């Protein structure tokens, strides 16, 4: 009792106790405020978004299971086509030149291109990733419409399936649209992506109708229309539904070998709406 009395009677001890208690209490109070703020600003929004995140994960897992079934079979057939026709072990330069000549003659008959310079075939260069490239260089005079079609055709050269002709964002938009409507519709979409590009472009209606029967939501149809009407698929349809399609079938030019664009230059020509296009392409082949 005496000790307690002397304890509470000592200003030094009381001051020390006060300062110590406050120095712990103030950070603890700040920690309380921070904890409440964290819960309000972070945890509650996270909790609100969690059901949709978990639902989406379950949907994607379901789609993966469905897709796994025929993936192995499809991979083998696509790989075989690429190895035989698109990236062969021997570059078929005459075939590539015949394809470019067919393009020029088709566009010339439409009045979209003028003269084509001789096509220079350079010395093959190894690329170091199991591929080698044969450089092809030429100049072409063309109207703006012809220029657009030539560049689109070069982009199409070497693509095999419908999926190849779509950008990553276009493909993702279509896949995401199936999640919202019918997760098992991914199988039909997968079949659409792996459809031969030439067959689809020559006669798109049956393929498109089949897909639209399986996936009918407004969101999917909008994404589908966007993908088929504004992408490289539209250029493919323009080419292969026209005179080039039958000509390529007749001369066995499909699938085309892979042409990569190394350099392109556009310069205005002397007449209005005429341009000079210089293209440096690489005709690709496998080295192993």
């Amino acid at each position, binding site marked *: 009792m005496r000790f307690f009395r002397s304890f509470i009677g000592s200003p030094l001890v009381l001051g020390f106790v006060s300062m110590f208690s406050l120095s712990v209490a103030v950070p603890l109070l700040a920690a309380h405020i921070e904890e409440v703020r964290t819960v309000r600003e972070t945890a509650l929004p996270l909790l609100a978004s*969690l059901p949709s995140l978990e639902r989406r994960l379950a949907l994607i897992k379901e789609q993966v299971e469905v*897709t796994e079934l025929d*993936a192995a079979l499809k991979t083998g057939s696509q790989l075989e086509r690429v190895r035989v026709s698109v990236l062969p072990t021997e570059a078929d330069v005459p075939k590539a030149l015949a394809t470019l000549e067919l393009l020029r003659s088709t566009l010339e008959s439409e009045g979209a291109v003028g003269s084509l310079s001789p096509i220079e075939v350079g010395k093959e260069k190894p690329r170091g990733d199991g591929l080698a490239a044969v450089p092809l260089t030429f100049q072409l005079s063309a109207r703006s419409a012809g220029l657009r079609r030539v*560049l689109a055709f070069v982009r199409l050269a070497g693509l095999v399936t419908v999926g190849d002709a779509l950008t990553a964002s276009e493909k993702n938009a279509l896949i995401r649209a199936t999640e919202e409507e019918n997760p098992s519709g991914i199988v039909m979409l997968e079949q659409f992506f792996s459809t031969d590009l030439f067959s689809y472009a020559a006669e798109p209606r049956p393929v498109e109708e089949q897909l639209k029967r399986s996936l009918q939501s407004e969101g999917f149809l909008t994404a589908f229309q966007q993908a088929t009407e504004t992408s490289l698929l539209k250029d493919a349809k323009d080419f292969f539904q026209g005179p080039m399609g039958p000509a390529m079938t007749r001369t066995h030019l499909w699938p085309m070998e892979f042409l990569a664009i190394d350099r392109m230059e556009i310069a205005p020509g002397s007449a209005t709406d005429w341009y000079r296009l210089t293209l440096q392409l690489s005709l*690709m082949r496998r080295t192993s």
Partner: protein
Amino acid sequence: MTDIPTAMTGKLNLPTPVSVGPREVLKRVLFPFALFSVVLLSLLVLSWYLLLPRFTRVALHGVPQDPSHLQTYVEGVQAETKKMEDKRLALIFPLDHSSFGDLVQEKMSQPSLLAFYEQLKNVATTFLPEQSQAVFVQSISYENDVVQLKGDVRNVGLQSMAVVAQFVEAVRAMPGVKRVDFPSFTRERDENIGFHSPFVIQIHFS
């Protein structure tokens, strides 16, 4: 009886006030202050261990969890979703990670030079409202992800170099453009076209 006049005029017989020292004042103030601090600390400690967890815990699948655990769980769900998305893409596009897939991706990600050229022509005619014929484009080329624009500024007299700088700023503001390397600024005199500033601009995309 009390003699009131005497009492009013006489000295009051009160005790002399005792002087209180600062030590005594301190002692009297410090005790309630210390008591308040100790009680406050005790309440906060109790709140931290007993009250706060009760109000800040969130129920995850019916089980109360710490907010930090919720954050970890959500990150786990997002990582798993990303992994499954990649797996789904790999199954739908099995050749994406082959050398063929890389070539296709490279080709499909190249910008449309023709569309960019049309945009550039539009910028060249509109960035200087009072002189739409100042920028002449000689050629535009694309190589190794860089667009090179060759041309010259004319019909603006001695202002040609300043107009080149303004044109570069206008190109830099175009959508999708990441960086534009400044050309070397020169002014030349030609008998036919007068003062003009040829330029070569390198444009990098984002």
